């Protein structure tokens, strides 16, 4: 399951590591880390948003206990956030057709986030390939994201390869 968490850290060296260690210890797979410097709290604490994958609810409980023990304050926890993960491939002139725009179009759907992008740039004159992971709050949103991506891909002349299980 995918977990979205916001923790507040003191703005001193070593704090981030302290916050990540319990997640790693219990096999959590961190997908993204975002410092929210602009949201620094009056006490000078720094909110950090994390998205990570854990095996199950029990593992998450162990992580939360370990964070508490380490004195890390968790301010937000969304367990269902981006629960459905869909992996797709894109082939074509992905960068030249404005990958930022492609991602923004998907992120514009409420409840959908492009959580991972792996790009393999093709050699001179060849097309590039990318693997994209899309996190959505439910199946319908995941389907909506895929069909929007299909439309974008057609417009940009990209080949979209979806999962055989996605209908």
């Amino acid at each position: 399951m995918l977990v979205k968490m916001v923790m507040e850290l003191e703005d001193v060296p070593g704090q981030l590591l302290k916050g990540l260690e319990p997640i790693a210890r219990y096999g959590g797979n961190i997908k993204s880390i975002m410092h929210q410097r602009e949201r620094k709290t009056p006490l000078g604490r720094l909110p950090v948003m994390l998205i990570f994958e854990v095996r199950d609810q029990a593992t998450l409980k162990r992580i939360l206990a370990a964070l508490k023990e380490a004195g890390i304050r968790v301010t937000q926890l969304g367990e269902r956030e981006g629960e459905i993960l869909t992996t797709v491939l894109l082939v074509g002139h992905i960068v030249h057709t404005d990958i930022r725009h492609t991602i923004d179009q998907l992120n514009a759907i409420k409840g959908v986030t492009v959580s991972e992008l792996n790009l393999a740039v093709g050699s001179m004159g060849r097309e590039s390939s990318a693997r994209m992971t899309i996190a959505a709050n439910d199946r319908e949103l995941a389907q909506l994201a895929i069909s929007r991506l299909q439309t974008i891909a057609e417009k940009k002349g990209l080949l979209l390869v979806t999962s055989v299980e996605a209908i």
Partner: protein
Amino acid sequence: MRIIIIGFGNLGRGICRAFVEKADFLKRAHGLVPRVVAVADEFGAAVDEKGLDLPRLLKIAEGSGTVVGYPGGKRGKLALDLIDEVSADVVFELTPTNIRTGEPGLSHIKRAMQAGKHVITSNKGPLVVAFKELDALAKKQGVEFRYSASVGGAVPVIGLAKKLLSGNEISEIRGVLNGTTNYILTRMSAEGLPQEIIIREAQELGLAEKDPTLDIDGIDTACKVTILANSVLGINAKLSDVKVVGIRRITPEATRLAHEAGQMIKLVGIARRDRLEVGPKLVPQGHPLAVGGTLNAVTFKLDLAGEISITGFGAGPKETSSSLLGDLIDIHRTLGG
């Protein structure tokens, strides 16, 4: 049973070899004694109403590239005339596929049915061009029409769907139906080589045609989807109804990115009542369709049985003769043999 074989390439020779090697088995297990009374190829024909000497015929055809050299062989003899003139029970139509006109297979099949002969074919062309017409003609003429070898090679896709699963409503058939593209994708993923190099090697190994366009661009798979839609789902579908994307644009990097995420890229054909489609798809490792090399795999979605998947070799003369022979035995049984 008296048999005429039209087309004596790999498949024609393959079925004859099976007749020779399995003569005892066919008689013992099925009470079937196949007697090949005529064989036609593009150059002419060999005929013997008492039954051709198959080992001898195979030797001559392999040496000279034609059956004309068989004693009494008729150079320039047309298959169409042969079908009319020689009395036989079953015609095997095994000529090369032409997906635009269906010819010459289409004319051969029609002529055989009109002459009251049962037909077994591996030829996708006539099935794609005129499935409904041929199906209706067979019924009108009261003859059996079998085409198991046209989809899946040795994998009994059509037979399983139409016979053993006939208590189910089938909502979807999807499969890896082209061994050549599966071989190419498997090697791209394993070795990271560009497509052109693997295609060239596949051609040298005889796994890809000189012109691999029909395979690479997904047309061959689309033909099979069309045949499955017509024969199994009962849809009056044409090849142009299938939305087709081939594997030409798949890069070695794409296969690597898929692999890193525990997935494989497969060219998958999908036949559903509301959608006929061929395209590269991500298939998780361990999935029933995640077969490597030249293998084919098919999954049926069924109302009673749930999902059923089968896999096996989709090409090769020996493997395909399994389907051709199965069709012959099936007709033999249907007729009360």
